[in-house]
C-alpha cells in the first residue's frame, strides 16, 4: 500500500510539473511581458531595455522557467508586475476567501448529495427520483451566472432577505462574510450537489443489483440492514473520487460566481490579473489552482484506499 501511495504522489508531482510547463509556455505566448504592462505607453527604447534587464527578462526562456519553478517550489511566487507587493502576500487572503466559500458549500452539499443520491437510487424511476434527477440536471447545466442572477432577483430584490452582493474587503476575517456569503454558497452548493448526487445514485443502483445483495435478501436479512450494512459502504466509496473531480471542475464555476457576487476570492483576482496582463500573478494563480486540484485528488485516492478493505489488504494477499 505504501508503494501505491508513493506512486500516486509521484504521478501528482508529475502532473504539477507538466502544468507548470504548460502555464509557463502559455504565458510566454502572450504578446508583451510584465515590462510592457508596467511601463504602458513609455514601453520603448532604453526604458524598456533597462526594465527587462532589471527583471532578467533578457535571459533564455528555459533559464527563466527553471528560476521561476524552483522559487515557486520554495513558496516564493515572485512580485506582481504593477506593484512592489509580493504575490504570496496578495494571493494569501484571496485563497483563504475562496477556500472559505468552497468549504461552506462542501459542508452543505456533500451530506445533502449523499442523502438525495441514496434516496433516488433506492426509489429508482419513482416520482421522487424523477423529480430530484430532473432538478439535478437543471442545477448542473444551467450556467452559474444564470442561477446566481435568478437567486439574487428572488431573495435579494423581491424578498429582500439576503444581501445580493459582497462588500466585505478581502482581508476581513471569515466571520464578517456572513450573511453576504450565503447566496454564493447556495449557488455553488446547488451545482455541486447535482453532480455528486447523480454519481451516488448510479452507484447505489449498481451495488443494489449485486449478487451479494440478492444473497442477503434470500437469507432473510431485513431490507434496511442490507441497505445500511451491505450496500451503502460499497456504494459510497467511488463517490469520494467524484467529489474530488467535481471540486476541480467547480474551480471554473467559482470564478464566475465570485465575479457575479463581487466576492474577493482567487477567481476574481485571476480575471482582474488577466485583464491587466499582470502575468506573474496569472502564472501564480494557475499554479496554485493546479496544485489544489492535484492535492484534492490525491487525498481522495488516499481516503478511498483507507476506506476500501480490498485495497487495504491487497499487499497481504499478494505477499
Amino acid at each position, binding site marked *: 500500500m505504501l508503494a501505491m501511495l508513493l506512486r500516486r504522489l509521484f504521478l501528482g508531482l508529475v502532473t504539477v510539473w507538466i502544468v507548470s510547463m504548460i502555464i509557463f509556455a502559455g504565458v510566454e505566448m502572450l504578446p508583451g511581458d510584465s515590462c510592457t504592462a508596467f511601463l504602458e505607453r513609455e514601453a520603448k527604447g532604453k526604458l524598456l531595455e533597462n526594465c527587462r534587464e532589471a527583471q532578467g527578462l533578457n535571459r533564455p526562456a528555459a533559464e527563466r522557467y527553471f528560476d521561476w519553478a524552483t522559487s515557486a517550489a520554495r513558496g516564493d511566487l515572485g512580485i506582481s508586475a504593477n506593484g512592489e507587493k509580493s504575490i504570496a502576500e496578495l494571493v494569501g487572503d484571496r485563497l483563504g476567501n475562496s477556500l472559505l466559500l468552497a468549504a461552506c458549500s462542501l459542508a452543505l452539499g456533500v451530506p445533502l448529495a449523499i442523502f438525495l443520491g441514496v434516496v433516488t437510487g433506492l426509489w429508482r424511476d419513482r416520482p421522487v427520483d424523477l423529480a430530484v434527477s430532473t432538478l439535478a440536471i437543471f442545477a448542473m447545466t444551467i450556467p452559474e451566472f444564470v442561477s446566481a442572477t435568478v437567486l439574487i432577483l428572488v431573495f435579494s430584490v423581491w424578498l429582500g432577505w439576503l444581501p445580493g452582493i459582497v462588500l466585505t474587503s478581502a482581508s476581513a476575517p471569515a466571520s464578517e462574510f456572513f450573511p453576504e456569503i450565503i447566496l454564493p454558497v447556495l449557488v455553488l452548493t446547488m451545482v455541486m450537489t447535482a*453532480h455528486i448526487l447523480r454519481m451516488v445514485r448510479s452507484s447505489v443502483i449498481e451495488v443494489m443489483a449485486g449478487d451479494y445483495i440478492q444473497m442477503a435478501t434470500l437469507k432473510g436479512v431485513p431490507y434496511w440492514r442490507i441497505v445500511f450494512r451491505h450496500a451503502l459502504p460499497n456504494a459510497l466509496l467511488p463517490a469520494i473520487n467524484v467529489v474530488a473531480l467535481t471540486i476541480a471542475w467547480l474551480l471554473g464555476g467559482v470564478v464566475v460566481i465570485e465575479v457575479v457576487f463581487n466576492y474577493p476570492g482567487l477567481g476574481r483576482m485571476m480575471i482582474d490579473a488577466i485583464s491587466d496582463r499582470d502575468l506573474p500573478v496569472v502564472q501564480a494563480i494557475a499554479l496554485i489552482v493546479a496544485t489544489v486540484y492535484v492535492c484534492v485528488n490525491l487525498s481522495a485516492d488516499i481516503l478511498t484506499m483507507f476506506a476500501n478493505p480490498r485495497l487495504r489488504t491487497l499487499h497481504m494477499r499478494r505477499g
Partner: protein
Amino acid sequence: MTVTSASPQNTRLMRTLSVLRDVVSRPSGAIGLFLVVFHVVLALVSPWIVPYDYKAMNSAMMLTGPEATHWLGTDHLGRDVFTRVLLGGREALLVTGIATPIAVTWGGFVGILFGLIGGRIDEVLMRVVDAFLSLPWILKMLVLIVTFGTGIEVLIPTLAFFYGIPVIRIARAATHDVVARDFVSAARARGHSRMTIIRHELLPNVLDTLMVEGAMRWSWMLLAFSSLSFLGFGVSPPTPDWGLMIADARGFMSFAPWGVLGPVIALSSLIIGINLTADALAKALGIDRAQKAPV
C-alpha cells in the same frame, strides 16, 4: 453496445431511425428534442421575424416595462428586449454548433488511436491530458482569448481544442473496452493497418459513446460560451447575446427585472433541452452517463 460490422447503408439508417424513435418515445427526449429543434429553427429564421432593429436605440423609451408595442420591455439604451432575446442565441449556436463536431472528432480520433497503440506513449499522453484537465476551463480559455482577441474565429478553435481533450479520455476508455476482444485480434492477425482497424472495428463500437459525449460537450460548451460573454470576453456589443444581455441588465434588476428574465429563460430552455435529449439518447443507446465525472 451493439457490434455493427461492415453493414450496408440502410441497416445503419434503420438503426438511427429506431434510436430516434426510442428517444422521442421518452417524455424527456420528446420535450428536449422539441426545445433544441425550436431554438435551432428560431436561430435560423429570427432575422426575418423580429419586430425591431436589434441595435436601434430610443432614448425616449429607456427601461420601460412590458407593453403592447414592446412585449418584453426595453433595455437601458431603449432597445427592444424581445427582439434581442429572439436573436440572442444565434452567435452561441453558431460557435458551439461548429466547435462541438470538431472537438468530438479530433478528441475521439486521438483517444481511439492511443487506446489502440497503448504502452508508454499512451501513458505520457494521459499525463498531459490530466495536466490540462487540472486547470480550470476559464483560465485556459481566457489566456488564449486575451492573446488572440474575442472574435468567432478565435472562440471556435479555442472551444474545439479544449473541449476535445476530455473526449480523448472517454474515447480511450471506450476503446479499451473493445480492443482486447477477438474481432480486433482477428483483424490484427489478418494484417490490417491501424487506420483500417480503427475505421472498421473500433469506430462502430465507440460511436455510441461519442454521440452521447458530443451532446454533453455541446451543453458544457454553451455554458462556457455564455459565461465568457457574461464576463465580457465573448461576443462584443451591440451583437445581441444572452450572456451579454444578462450582464448588461443585471445592474437594473431591482426596477427592471424584464431585462434579465427573457435571456435567462431562453438560455436555460436551450441548455435544458440539450441535456434532456442527451439523457434520453444515452438511455436509448444503453450508456450510463452519470457514472462519469464532469471533466
